[in-house]
């Protein structure tokens, strides 16, 4: 199982590098940070049928940190929601593959985001809807650490536990770098785990690049527990390209020329 997801993660990274290179777009560091999370979700966890993207029984997945949208587009293309060739249109004039993830015309994208602090509330509404209708699918929301500065998230976090939404999973990409510098210097999140726990959530901390750990945490049957699940995924921003790792320049910079070749080679070789 991990072998497949590890293969998908590599493809997501390579696609995203090429997409941001061709589109001269930003956020490659953020995408590389969640490539493993996306791969584990799409390969090992989410129930879906690419031929029927709106199938009622599908699991719902929202990328709340919409700036990593290229990673989701790549995952969806690899899972046959649309042709891989389409990815090359990312960020180009007239393209529907926008820098921040958008659902219009893109099969498989559940929800459009880009402004931080929106996804979790919507995922919570979807989870509530499933409970009301006695449906058994789960709802997953991937969010960033910096995004947890947004107060709207904490409204949703309180709500989800109050309503016992154990069909809801929030995955936090905790790479310890937000837009300018670290959360510790910006607006300290710690004690992060106990914040979620005190708000009534179950919390699991994992290495966000370890596919077995991620799979175990996300597979764990939370339904029946009465508690929503938060998976704090400790990640490395820019993971997989040595000169991008833990360097926030790559929240903005596009890999060109030698940098692009070097990054591509590192990802192909799999450092």
């Amino acid at each position, binding site marked *: 199982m991990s072998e497949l997801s590890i293969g998908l993660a590599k493809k997501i990274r390579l696609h995203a590098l090429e997409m941001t290179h061709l589109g001269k777009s930003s956020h490659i560091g953020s995408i590389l940070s969640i490539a493993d999370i996306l791969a584990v979700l799409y390969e090992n966890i989410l129930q879906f049928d690419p031929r029927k993207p709106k199938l009622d029984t599908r699991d719902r997945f929202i990328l709340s940190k919409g700036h990593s949208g290229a990673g989701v587009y790549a995952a969806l293309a690899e899972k046959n929601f649309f042709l891989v060739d389409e990815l090359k249109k990312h960020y180009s004039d007239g393209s529907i593959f926008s820098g921040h993830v958008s659902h219009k015309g893109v099969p498989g994208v559940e929800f459009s985001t880009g402004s931080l602090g929106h996804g979790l509330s919507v995922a919570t509404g979807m989870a509530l809807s499933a409970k009301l209708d006695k449906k058994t699918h789960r709802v997953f929301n991937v969010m960033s650490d910096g995004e947890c500065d947004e107060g709207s998230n904490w*409204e949703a976090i309180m709500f989800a536990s109050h309503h016992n939404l154990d069909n809801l999973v929030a995955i936090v990409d905790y790479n310890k770098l937000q837009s300018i510098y670290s959360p510790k210097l910006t607006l300290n999140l710690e004690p992060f785990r106990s914040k979620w726990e005190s708000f009534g959530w179950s919390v699991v901390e994992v290495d966000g690049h370890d596919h077995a750990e991620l799979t175990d945490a996300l597979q764990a049957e939370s339904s029946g527990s009465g508690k929503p699940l938060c998976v704090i995924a400790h990640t490395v921003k820019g993971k997989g390209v040595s000169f991008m790792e833990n360097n926030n320049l790559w929240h903005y910079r596009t890999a060109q020329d030698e940098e692009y070749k070097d990054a591509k080679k590192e990802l192909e070789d799999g450092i």
Partner: protein
Amino acid sequence: MRDAFVKQLTELAKKDESIFFITADLGFGVFDNFAERFPNQYLNVGVAEQNMVGIATGLGLEGRKVFTYSIANFATLRCLEQIRNDAAYHEVNLTVVASGGGFTYGGLGMSHHATEDISIMRSLPGVEVVAPCTAWETYEATKLLSQNQGVSYLRIEKGGIQIPPYPNTEFEVGKAIKMIEGSDISIIATGGIITECLKAEKILKDQGVSSEVISMHTIKPLDEDAIIASASLTKNIITVEEHNKYGGLGSAVAETIAKYNIDCRLSCISIDDVYSAIVGSQEYLRAHYKLDHHEIIKKAQALLQ
């Protein structure tokens, strides 16, 4: 108007399980009966408007017809980006209900004066904007907006006329209602302030001025035909709204007149780009900010001179 809204909401919920009502912890006592009868169609999310619209969007994406409810600006401005990005962009069936349009809660202070909402909501693509002039219109609008696949804004006030102007009046979103026929001047209003227009009409009539009073309950989509027809007839238009002068009814009517190059005079009654630092009853503030029937009469006399 609020009672008319709750009455229609109750009737809708009874017939349709997908109707879902969310309040951000406002409406003390008003929704108790609804909550008891329809526990799976009612939710109090707490004092959390951003989350309210997010939840509403999630429920809407799963097929529900959702109403969100709060007082004045909390229903709109506090969660404007959620309305724009989440509900409107995703074309969710959501009716945003704001109780307390204009100076309804005049005594509570500027935080509770909803005086820019029409303009702001009108500028969101695809969002329909309805500010009923009467309780009857509120009742009818609630039903129709619940059937609109997309976001609507329903701005309600207190009180209001309970019955339609004529026995067989039909209510349609985007179709103005002629409350009174007239030939010298057109008074076009949105919201509960129509009562001031009706007062002015009576006094003007005694002075020998025949006024056409039009309820422009829907600001978007705007009934351009009604404006063109009335302007062509009277050549004199007064717009009346309990709202700032930018972007509301007056602006919308002016846009129409300019767009179709209609030969008429236009006088807009609205708030003169201020926040109210004073408080008072709705009636007091209408008079203070020169929105009441005295002002309508003055404007009418000036136009007809």
